[in-house]
């Protein structure tokens, strides 16, 4: 269970006149995410959704409020304890290429959390890496390659396998499919859904695309300027969105078919 209680995060930025400004990246967000369900978070760029992900992972400290993992406030955890918590809550970063150490083979990247967070011997590690590599459909030949020898989709799959290799209870995907080709995007999304069906980790899927969010989860959050403006349970279609801002987002989606143009001409 991940709980956020009135969490705010402020950044200090300098504006053009070099005077300091405080910017609320996340403003008084309260959330409760349980490890059995999957969630999706929608917002445009600059809405603070990435900051929220970083806060949950303990990479950044909130200015106000508490973040609790299983009832323990992460601000009060020692760095070692927080580190070991990563075995339960993992994250997949936005840009797969830069998220992989360029000098480590795909195998080593996937094995890293196992080495750091669990006490598994070499053969156990090996079987685990291969197990997850198979799940994300990477061949053993591809496991030997370095990141730059893999395609964008393959890199992404390495990242997903890495996040899952310690069998976490919860995975945060931060814009995991933006910038990918549509076919690759579909492939990755289906992969994640399949994995969830197999019972490996529930997730929070952060995206700017309502289509993707709807595709991925039933529990949707809509975020705007650091606050959560709408929370929908069991969302199935656009009709479930009621907040004005959510409607705006839906309005700005590209059409599903060109036929609407014919209609507007005929009218």
């Amino acid at each position: 269970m991940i709980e956020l209680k009135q969490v705010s995060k402020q950044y200090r930025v300098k504006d053009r006149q070099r005077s300091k400004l405080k910017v609320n990246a996340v403003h008084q967000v309260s959330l409760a995410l349980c490890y059995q369900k999957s969630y999706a978070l929608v917002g445009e760029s600059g809405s603070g959704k990435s900051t929220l992900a970083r806060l949950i992972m303990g990479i950044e400290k909130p200015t106000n409020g508490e973040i609790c993992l299983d009832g323990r406030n992460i601000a009060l955890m020692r760095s070692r304890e927080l580190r070991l918590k990563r075995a339960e809550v993992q994250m997949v970063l936005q840009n797969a290429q830069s998220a992989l150490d360029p000098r480590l083979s795909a195998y080593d990247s996937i094995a890293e959390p196992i080495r750091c967070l669990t006490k598994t011997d070499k053969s156990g590690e090996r079987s685990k890496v291969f197990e997850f590599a198979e799940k994300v459909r990477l061949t053993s030949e591809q496991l030997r390659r370095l990141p730059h020898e893999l395609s964008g989709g393959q890199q992404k799959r390495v990242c997903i396998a890495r996040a899952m290799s310690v069998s976490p209870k919860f995975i945060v995907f931060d814009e995991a499919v933006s910038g990918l080709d549509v076919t690759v995007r579909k492939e990755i999304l289906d992969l994640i859904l399949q994995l969830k069906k197999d019972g490996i980790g529930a997730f929070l899927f952060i995206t700017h695309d309502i289509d993707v969010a709807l595709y991925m989860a039933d529990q949707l959050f809509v975020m705007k300027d650091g606050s959560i403006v709408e929370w929908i349970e069991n969302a199935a279609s656009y009709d479930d969105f009621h907040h004005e801002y959510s409607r705006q987002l839906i309005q700005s989606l590209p059409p599903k078919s060109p036929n609407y143009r014919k209609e507007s001409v005929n009218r």
Partner: protein
Amino acid sequence: MIKKLLKSKQAMIGLTLIVLVTLVALWAPLIAPHDPNKIDVLNRFMSASSQYPLGTDQLGRCVLSRLLIGASYSLGIAVPTLLVLGIVGLTLGTASAYVGMRWERVFLSICDIFMAFPALVIVLSLIGALGQGLLSILLAVAFSLWAWFAKVVWSYARMEISKDYILAAKIAGCSDRRIILYHIIPNIFPQFLVYLSTGIAGMIIMISGFSFLGLGFEAGTPEWGAMLNEARSNFYSHPELVFYPGLCVLITAAGFNLFGEALRDMISPEEVNE
């Protein structure tokens, strides 16, 4: 990486030169035809002959033997100093970049002070303190160059730390030590190696420059810069005595520079895509 290196002509020429000079430095006492310090006043300024392949100098010493021995002085100082500097630079640079905050600022101001301090003064004072000789040159070079090394490592490490994969490693549960040893250092190492390689070249030139000014080695030491210095009084009548030692410095430095630059071309992406 290594395969690419073997393919590059430039790197291979550089490496050959380095190996050649290293071998000479190691085996100089065995291959030198004469005792490099044997003074023979009767045979001064002899031109090249089968007995003295490169002739003799102003004191009748065999030039070739002295040049061969000279290699061990240059490399003997440059390489160990560099190892020390490399370790110091890597530790201080990565550590301060990783810790950040106040440490980083203190580290940077100390670096600034040492970088602003003319190396020549450090060398001279240390020689004054410890007397002429290898140790003081070694210390002096280390003392005057460490800040450059540390700061270069720091700037590389800083760049690396801001990248996503370090964050990903943290999320993967790596400890700080593991991030530094397993991620940061291996990733900055190629760049660092380039800097080291060109650094050796600079250092060899620097050392011979000092001994050219009469600093560091006692008179009569068969070091290239010192030989040049001794030969300068007879420069107009016997320019070849000046020519040889300088050529040796050039060849050694060029070896390291060629190798280092070939390495740099390899790791910087814009050079690769034609």
